């Protein structure tokens, strides 16, 4: 069972991973990505962050990303939990947890999902620094990370 949630409330890492794998002896590997809020970005100290999203489209786009991962790899379960609203340094922002029979699929699918989430899911970060508020700019390195997976499609190395 896949779970996709967008929420203001904090999430519990252990509880999410336990729920992902509970009662499924076909799972041989769980790979997780936990994204955290840094207190430093683009040369400035960041005091807080507000995450905005497009309710409805966010869940739909995350669902499409997970569905694409499932087409590419043999997976037993996926959990994506993303927070919105006010966040402070050290707060978890996003959890991607992927369960599969073997580690290879889980590693690749987890990285694929976070790479696609960063370039496709409609979330926007606004940082509060000592000199005021600013919207976070999209990074070319994130586009490059996403493009790798599409290049793999072309060369047939994706699986």
């Amino acid at each position, binding site marked *: 069972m896949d779970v996709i949630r967008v929420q203001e409330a904090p999430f519990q890492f252990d509880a999410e991973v336990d729920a992902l794998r509970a009662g499924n002896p076909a799972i041989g590997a769980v790979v997780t990505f936990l*994204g955290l809020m840094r207190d430093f970005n683009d040369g400035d100290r960041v005091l807080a962050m507000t*995450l*905005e*999203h*497009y309710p*409805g*489209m966010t869940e*739909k*786009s995350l669902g499409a990303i997970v569905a694409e991962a499932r087409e590419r790899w043999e997976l037993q379960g996926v959990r994506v939990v*993303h927070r919105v609203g006010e966040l402070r340094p050290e707060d978890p*922002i*996003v959890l991607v947890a992927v369960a599969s029979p073997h580690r290879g699929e889980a590693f690749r699918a987890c990285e694929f999902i*976070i790479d696609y*989430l*960063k*370039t*496709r*899911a*409609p*979330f*926007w*970060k*606004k940082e509060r620094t000592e000199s005021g508020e600013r*919207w*976070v*700019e*999209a*990074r070319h390195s*994130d586009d490059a990370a996403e493009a790798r997976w599409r290049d793999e499609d072309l060369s047939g190395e994706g699986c």
Partner: protein
Amino acid sequence: MIRLRYFARLREQLGTGSEEMAPAASVAEVLERLRARGGVWAEAFDGEQTVLVAVNQETVGVDAPLADGDEVAFFPPVTGG
């Protein structure tokens, strides 16, 4: 009518998050009407800053056709995760 929505930096720049508009044939036609308002509207949609478009919550190009009742969203490149 179609429903327009604006998010993040664009929402702040335009001073509104949503509005209703008379039906249009395509996203391009909506963009023409918005630019014709001048001021911040012309600035926001003059092509200088990247603006992404979704119709009924699916990302599309500016040539995408529209039907009565559609929801058209405009927003900057995404920065989640």
